[in-house]
């Protein structure tokens, strides 16, 4: 058992990574990282550029191969299960870039998000996610690459909600959004998703904004967990500013991590 599971007041984890090592082409980017997220909980992973935050998420959703440690969904070991299987089991993932099917219409994007459902279920879910993001229903016929940055991210999240996942994994959902939109996305939508029971695991460059909504925060530096705890505890620590905010990430200018570049 990991230390974090014993923390009082945290829910039983829906998804947990235990001592995960992963990277590209045999070179580990993250080493021995453990993290967990439970229902109704928002767990934020923050850290400087190139810390391996996106790598961690990609390892959890089956895109990158885990070379050490394991990933558990409830009690099931899902280490290195293919992404299709994880989608079926209730893990929804919104990547930072390439997060929608650009040449498809908004409606078609939602239909693909609900690929595993029957067509009747798809119709019901499209209406339901339309209630969550009221901006989307009027633009169902529009091509997705014609959307604005904010609309695009809402579509990406709506797409992943089609399957009503238990666990939502969001990789920098506020990248490329204006500060106002970013705030709205985090404080309204992400918080609401957690409040209806989703386990939300999120990587966020806007550390302060992330700390405001998170129930638990993990600071990743150079591929390893440097610090973790409740946001208010972290903020009280003297070395926190130095570790994270001093690492040049107080400006959310760069939307991409090094390991995200293709």
């Amino acid at each position: 058992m990991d230390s974090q599971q014993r923390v009082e007041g945290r829910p039983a984890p829906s998804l947990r990574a235990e001592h995960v090592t992963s990277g590209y082409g045999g070179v580990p980017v993250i080493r021995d990282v453990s993290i967990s997220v439970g229902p109704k909980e928002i767990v934020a992973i923050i850290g400087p550029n190139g810390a391996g935050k996106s790598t961690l998420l990609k390892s959890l959703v089956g895109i990158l191969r885990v070379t050490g440690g394991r990933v558990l969904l409830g009690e099931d070991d899902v280490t290195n299960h293919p992404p299709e299987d994880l989608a079926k089991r209730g893990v929804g993932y919104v990547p930072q870039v390439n997060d929608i099917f650009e040449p498809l219409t908004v409606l078609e994007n939602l239909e693909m998000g609900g690929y595993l459902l029957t067509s009747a279920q798809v119709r019901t879910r499209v209406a339901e996610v339309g209630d969550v993001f009221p901006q989307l229903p009027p633009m169902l016929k529009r091509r997705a690459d014609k959307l604005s940055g904010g609309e695009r991210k809402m579509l990406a999240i709506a797409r992943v909600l089609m399957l009503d996942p238990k666990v939502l994994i969001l990789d920098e959902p506020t990248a490329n959004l204006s500060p106002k939109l970013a705030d709205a996305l985090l404080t309204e939508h992400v918080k609401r998703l957690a409040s209806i029971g989703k386990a939300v695991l999120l990587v966020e460059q806007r550390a302060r904004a992330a700390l405001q909504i998170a129930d638990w925060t993990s600071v990743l530096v150079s591929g390893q967990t440097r610090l973790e705890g409740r946001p208010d505890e972290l903020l009280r620590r003297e070395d926190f500013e130095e570790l994270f905010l001093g690492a040049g990430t107080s400006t959310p200018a760069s939307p991409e991590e090094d390991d995200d570049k293709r």
Partner: protein
Amino acid sequence: MSLFVAAFGFGLVSMSVIAIAAVGFTMQFGITNMINLAYGEVMISSAYVAYYLNKAGISIWIGMVVGALFGAAFSFLLNRIVYAPFQRKGTSYLGMVIVSLAISLMMANLLLPIVGYYSVSYQEGTGGLIRLGAIILTTNQILIIGIAVVVMLLIHGLLKYTRLGKAMRATSANPTLARNCGIPTQRVVDAVWLITGALCGLAGVVAALNSDSFAIANGAAFLITILAAAVLGGAGQPYGAMIGAVLIGLITELSAAAWSPEYKEVVAFGVLVLVMVLRPQGLLAKRGAMAAAG
């Protein structure tokens, strides 16, 4: 003038043949990332399958269906046995082109002892002549045009209105995201090879039916025209390939009337080079890859 009107009629037939072939070719590239240079050889092999059935007294229209089924099965196996294993090993894009070129050469040389050097032709009446003003076409040619129109409508319906077709476009646009949605992309790719293989086989029989005779060497010539149409329209895009087929079909036949039939392919490539200079991404941009029309 009537010569050009007649050439326009032939252009309609040419574009029909090219469209069936080019749409299959471009979908293979658009969805599976495979520039399949063996496409022309699969076409000609299917044409021969129909030829032997035809020789045994079976109608060429049934031969056409069997040719399409042969193309589907052959392409599916070609991908499963050769291309997919190479792609899984991470063979580069260019490496895959060379692999398909090797397959193409192997097929041509394996076919040679079976079917021989000589040109053959189907034993099928051309049907009566149908005149529309100066346009004179045979019944067979009218049927070919009809088949092409039906096939294009079916492909459009598939891509725009069916779950499988949308999954094909999603896989083409963003394969990783498609998997994250739970789309079984492997099965989608299998379906793509079956469907495009059927188009390839059908196109082979139709092309052979439309020419007086055919031989193994035609495989390479087919490929060149198909490449021109597919690239002209914007590689990887079915609707682009349709537009490319219309242009290449018309321009080559009109140039044949104006100049000489021997230079048809030269003209096709002249058009291609011109478009590439003016609009390197093809007539429809890659962003629109596998997009819904309209």
